[in-house]
């Protein structure tokens, strides 16, 4: 099944069918993204028409509208889109790298590290602006720990997953320690950061993390071919002239950077990275050249939609978006799991 990405297809009809499905999926994803973006700009405490909102976005119209749209709604929406795209792509890369349907930044401890970084800066009394930097540093720290423990003349898959769980647990313990020791109001803020939320993002944060994210996403798309070769298995990939360990390390670093940057914007939002690759595989079948980009698109739509649900549809205010992504993502993932559990079973070592 995994070989289909690079082997020549024998049946052209199935190829066109896959291509049509991919195109359809991409189209509907883009439309959904546009609609959700417009909704996120128009709905809120100060409702306005879509036209007014779009004009306010470029600085035309009533000064109050411009302020609300440009300074409050737009950064939040962009943060959700960028973080979602990063998480979706990171999850897709990791699941194919580890050939494990449970691999995700959550399982590996990257998001745990990001929360630790954020909470540690909160504890040190740093301003809200510095917290994404802390999240990024924490995510990279987790990845370094992971590499240090798991590296042993190459990166074996089982060892990486096990080590990731270990790193994750240790970092989560550190966060837990801080939450227990903090005064109550700081503990609430820390908890918000460890559940994931895009509340109150500013352009400064969005530009910094978003710009870096675009660069890393581009590199990830370029490296897609190496990922496809790794899909064939280590022996075949080696026979094809790929240095498997070095390539795996590069891809791993990319995925970590994507997840950390996403966590720097939105905190460790659960489930997007875990669920998105399953959704993409369910819709488009075996991985193709388009699946990484599609994972990014799906992640963006998912996170933006969840954030809108948090903002406008729920009766309770101030819930973190992570709670909604988990609630929405879980049934999805369970349905997928129930449908395809036999291939999943065979992939288990």
């Amino acid at each position, binding site marked *: 099944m995994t070989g289909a990405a690079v082997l020549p297809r024998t049946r052209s009809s199935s190829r066109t069918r896959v291509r049509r499905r991919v195109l359809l999926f991409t189209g509907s994803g883009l439309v959904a993204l546009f609609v959700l973006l417009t909704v996120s700009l128009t709905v809120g405490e100060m409702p306005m028409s879509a036209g007014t909102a779009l004009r306010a976005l470029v600085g035309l119209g009533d000064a109050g509208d411009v302020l609300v749209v440009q300074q409050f709604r737009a950064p939040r929406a962009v943060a959700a889109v960028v973080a979602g795209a990063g998480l979706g792509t990171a999850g897709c890369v990791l699941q194919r790298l580890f050939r494990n349907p449970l691999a995700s930044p959550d399982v590996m401890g990257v998001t745990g590290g990001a929360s630790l970084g954020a909470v540690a800066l909160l504890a040190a009394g740093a301003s809200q602006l510095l917290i994404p930097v802390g999240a990024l540093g924490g995510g990279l720290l987790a990845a370094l720990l992971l590499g240090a423990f798991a590296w042993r003349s190459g990166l074996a898959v089982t060892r990486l997953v096990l080590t990731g769980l270990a790193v994750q647990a240790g970092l989560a313990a550190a966060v837990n320690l801080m939450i227990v020791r903090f005064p109550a109001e700081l503990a609430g803020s820390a908890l918000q950061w460890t559940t994931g939320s895009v509340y109150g993002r500013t352009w400064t944060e969005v530009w910094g993390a978003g710009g870096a994210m675009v660069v890393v996403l581009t590199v990830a798309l370029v490296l897609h071919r190496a990922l496809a070769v790794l899909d064939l298995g280590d022996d075949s990939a080696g026979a094809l002239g790929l240095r498997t360990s070095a390539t795996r390390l590069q891809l791993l670093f990319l995925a970590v950077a994507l997840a950390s940057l996403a966590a720097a914007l939105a905190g460790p939002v659960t489930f997007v990275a875990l669920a998105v690759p399953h959704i993409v595989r369910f819709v488009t079948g075996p991985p193709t050249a388009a699946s990484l980009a599609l994972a990014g698109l799906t992640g963006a739509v998912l996170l933006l939609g969840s954030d809108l649900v948090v903002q406008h549809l729920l009766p309770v205010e101030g819930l973190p978006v*992570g709670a909604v992504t988990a609630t929405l993502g879980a049934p999805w993932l369970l349905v997928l799991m129930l449908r395809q559990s036999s291939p999943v079973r065979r992939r288990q070592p």
Partner: protein
Amino acid sequence: MTVTRRGVPTGVPSPALRRLPLLLGGLAALALCAALSLALGARSVPLSTVGDALFGHARGRDATVVTGLRLPRTLIGLAVGAALGVAGAVAQGITRNPLASPTTLGINAGAGFAVVVAIFALRLDSPVEYVWFAFAGAAGAALFAQALARRSGDIDPVRLALGGTVLQLVLLSWTSAVMLLNQRTLDEARFWLAGSLSDRPLDVLWPVLPTLLLGLVVALAVSPALNALALGDDSAQALGVPVARIRLAGGAAVVLLAGSAVAMAGPVAFIGLAAPHLVRPLLGNDHRLLVPGCLIAGPLLLLAADVLGRMVFRPSELEVGIVTAFLGAPLLALLARRVAR
């Protein structure tokens, strides 16, 4: 000794006999840990006084500390550790997955969510009141995970691990959401959610003692069959082992044991995962030895972690759940390095 020999098929040298020194050494280490747990803390008591206090010969503040605070704490620690260790061994056996543990089956998360909701809605404020909510939450989550994993009457190990992880993530985020709704809930729940043995009277042990013992009996009863299960479902079936029934019984044992543990101490991670991984290099893969081994290794780990937590930040102390996660994490990383290739 003859009894042990009789239980083993003829022609095979008794593994229990060969490993007897190891089991005895483990028991000795456990006794030492229990003694330290009685003696050490914010107010350290000499071991001789501890002995006197236990037999009722001593009076005074030291004796009160030992019998009033540390004895319940140590007993609860023993029970929680034993339950978690055995639950971990059985969970790994029935799922054939070295990453399985009570935590990955959603048990800790279920208990946490139930307790947080109870604190929020019913305004509870002491660990004794949480016991049944925790047990109900744990059992509910575990049964749900197992229901998800059922497939033509049998529990699919991979679906169990996947479903449990999914459930755990959802419950954790709901727990955070409920805690964020109201400051009082956050304040009460965060200490319980860290997992701790302090401030627990023996009243938290008595209600769950029957479920704990029942779980232990079931776990020990299914452990020989887990060896056959390790060969794969088809081979086990061919050997005449009722695979589906064993897995169901094992799942029930995990729920009873881990549910009781979390009801007493709150979510303590890693003991259930680490204990079997610690015992396996010493005693081998035979579940007839592994499960009793975890019965010793679990409390050993938990008590050692608890004593350590009391010693690091004297006179304040570190919650045992935080210590186990801190210690268990590098241990697992090192084990992963050694075991997984």
